[in-house]
């Protein structure tokens, strides 16, 4: 049996009766009430129409255009919606329809001849055609009859903003800048595999997008290197003790070329994921500026310390870590007031606005059952936007595509769900977000405007 809308048509029939004050039979009332109750929008829709059609509209009490002062009329919704209803480009759609039939793109001349439509226009001004009616200003000059045609062809939709191909931006990729102890900077993006530097007995080798340190031992003098990913880059490296670190865009890691004494200490900014080799007598300490430090025995965890996010977070996946507020250079090991020991699946958060306040006032919040997939999406080549608000989504795009995001009229209050690959070009990502009703304009010099 062919699917049809007979049930819906029945509701329309009942609604129409109801709106025009025609009495309904008991069965009809029940049926209509059932539909009205089945979805919140239904009752609201019926009420709007009811008010529109049956509301008071005495002379002198009407308010129509926004510019007039008197009391607002219930008729508003139906008739305001009229404009919305007509907001489409009829001829544009007609042309697209014809294009599907003859991809050469032009309506056949046979068609033009026969275009004495079956629908007779009620006015005598049928002769006037299409493009004439583009601007409302033009319409004002023309007498009422002309509007009939305008009304029939619809009001063209406002221009849809699209991203020109030339402005599209490529996604981020592997790369980083290595700063050696003596200050030399080496850009790692386009180097081939092999030894790229030598420092104090240690060989620094670039291999498949990651960095290895070989020959590091306790005998070598300790020197500090740092790896920095600018916007649009990510990098992975292997530390002298075999620990692995993944750096997200706009991040950095400062570390010694060989680990000495009884602790392994590194400094991080931005976002990094760590898989730390267990070394019983050498806790691994990650320092995040003066804000916090994370002490680890052997474990897998992610640190997000972007200063433009709401909070500093450490998420733990296996092992155990101690997260402390402030900086603890003296090397004390007992938990302080501002410390928390995390178990796998937990996340410690320190609100960023409090950074800079004396440590006693800063609190650490512990979240349970974190979504590992979401926290580590970046490392796995994805954006995971589950439950993210627009601001968060835009900040991630800023770092990965190296753009500056500007809001034309405040940040729209939208939450998302879903994932996208990080390997898409910016235009593709924006297209996907447009589907979630966010609108953009991509300008030169890597500027992205978010439209209201």
């Amino acid at each position, binding site marked *: 049996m062919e699917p049809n809308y007979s049930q819906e048509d029945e509701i*329309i029939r009942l609604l129409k009766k109801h709106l025009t004050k025609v009495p309904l039979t008991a069965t009809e009332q029940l049926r209509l009430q059932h539909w009205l109750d089945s979805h919140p929008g239904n009752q609201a829709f019926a009420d709007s129409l009811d008010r529109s059609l049956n509301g008071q509209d005495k002379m002198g009490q009407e308010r129509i255009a926004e510019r007039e002062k008197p009391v607002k009329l219930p008729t508003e919704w139906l008739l305001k919606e009229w404009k919305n209803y007509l907001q489409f480009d009829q001829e544009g759609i007609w042309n697209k329809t014809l294009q599907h039939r003859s991809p050469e793109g032009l309506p056949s001349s046979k068609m033009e001849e026969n275009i004495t439509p079956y629908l007779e226009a009620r006015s005598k001004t049928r002769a006037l055609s299409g493009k004439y009616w583009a601007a409302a200003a033009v319409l004002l000059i023309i007498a*009422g009859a002309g509007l009939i045609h305008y009304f029939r062809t619809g009001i063209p939709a406002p221009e849809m903003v699209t991203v020109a191909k030339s402005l599209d931006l490529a996604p981020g990729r592997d790369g980083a800048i290595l700063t050696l102890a003596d200050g030399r900077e080496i850009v790692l993006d386009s180097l081939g595999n092999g030894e790229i530097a030598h420092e104090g007995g240690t060989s620094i080798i670039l291999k498949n997008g990651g960095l290895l340190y070989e020959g590091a031992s306790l005998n070598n003098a300790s020197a500090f290197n740092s790896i920095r990913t600018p916007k649009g880059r990510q990098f992975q490296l292997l530390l002298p003790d075999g620990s692995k670190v993944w750096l997200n865009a706009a991040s950095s890691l400062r570390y010694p070329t060989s680990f000495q004494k009884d602790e392994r200490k590194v400094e991080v900014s931005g976002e990094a994921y760590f898989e730390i080799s267990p070394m019983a007598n050498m806790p691994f300490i990650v320092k995040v500026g003066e804000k916090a430090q994370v002490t680890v025995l052997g474990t897998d965890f992610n640190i997000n310390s972007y200063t433009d996010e709401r909070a500093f977070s450490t998420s733990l996946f296996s092992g155990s870590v101690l997260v402390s507020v402030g900086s603890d250079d003296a090397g004390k090991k007992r938990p302080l007031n501002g410390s928390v020991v995390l178990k796998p699946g937990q996340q410690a958060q320190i609100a960023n606005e409090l950074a800079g306040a004396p440590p006693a006032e800063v609190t650490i919040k512990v979240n349970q059952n974190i979504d590992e997939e979401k926290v580590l999406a970046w490392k796995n080549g994805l954006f995971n936007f589950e439950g993210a608000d627009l601001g968060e989504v835009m900040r991630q795009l800023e770092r990965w595509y190296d753009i500056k995001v500007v809001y034309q009229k405040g940040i729209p209050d939208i939450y998302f769900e879903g994932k996208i690959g990080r390997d898409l070009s910016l235009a593709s990502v924006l297209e996907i977000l447009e589907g979630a009703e966010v609108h953009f304009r991509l300008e030169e010099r890597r500027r992205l405007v978010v439209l209201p």
Partner: protein
Amino acid sequence: MSETILYNEEELLRGFSAKEEAAFRSIFELLAAPLHYFARRLIADSTDAEDIVSIAFHKLWETTNKFESLKSLRSYLYITVRRQCIDRLRHQAVVQKARRDLFATQDHQTESLDNEYIQAELLRLIYEEIKMLPEKYRTILEWTYLLDLTTAEMAVRLGSTENHIRADRSRGLQLLRKALHNRALVFTPLGIFLLETLKG
């Protein structure tokens, strides 16, 4: 004074079945607006909605279905548009949380009705009625709601007074209500137009 009526519902259907371009164009003119409105209620993006509507009309032209009535032809169009909208939503990697209810309606066919269809069609009927109002009243309604003119502006253009404009607008709305009340619910208002003219 009455214009020659070029068609009624049967004529239109017959013309369409005979693959007459003009009949197709008339069906398009009747239904493009509500179908586009319907699509936008589902997917928000205007360009996508335009594409979807054009594809639906193209399918209509190409289909080998024989339609018993304009009513079933109209159903065909709405169903085609709806299916495309849901497909597009499903393929989007990122959706707003608020939209997920649409998938629910699609998957549980039994109880829930297509409320967007009900709204689009009811609005179509009402707006068609406005089109049928006598010119004076229709003009005032159009200028008020489509062009956002104030009564003062309309008074100037029509060489009338604001009070007259307001009175005419009231009367126009009254006539609209009466028209909705009186008309039987058929697919094309022109079927009714035919009746009107016969009445003289």
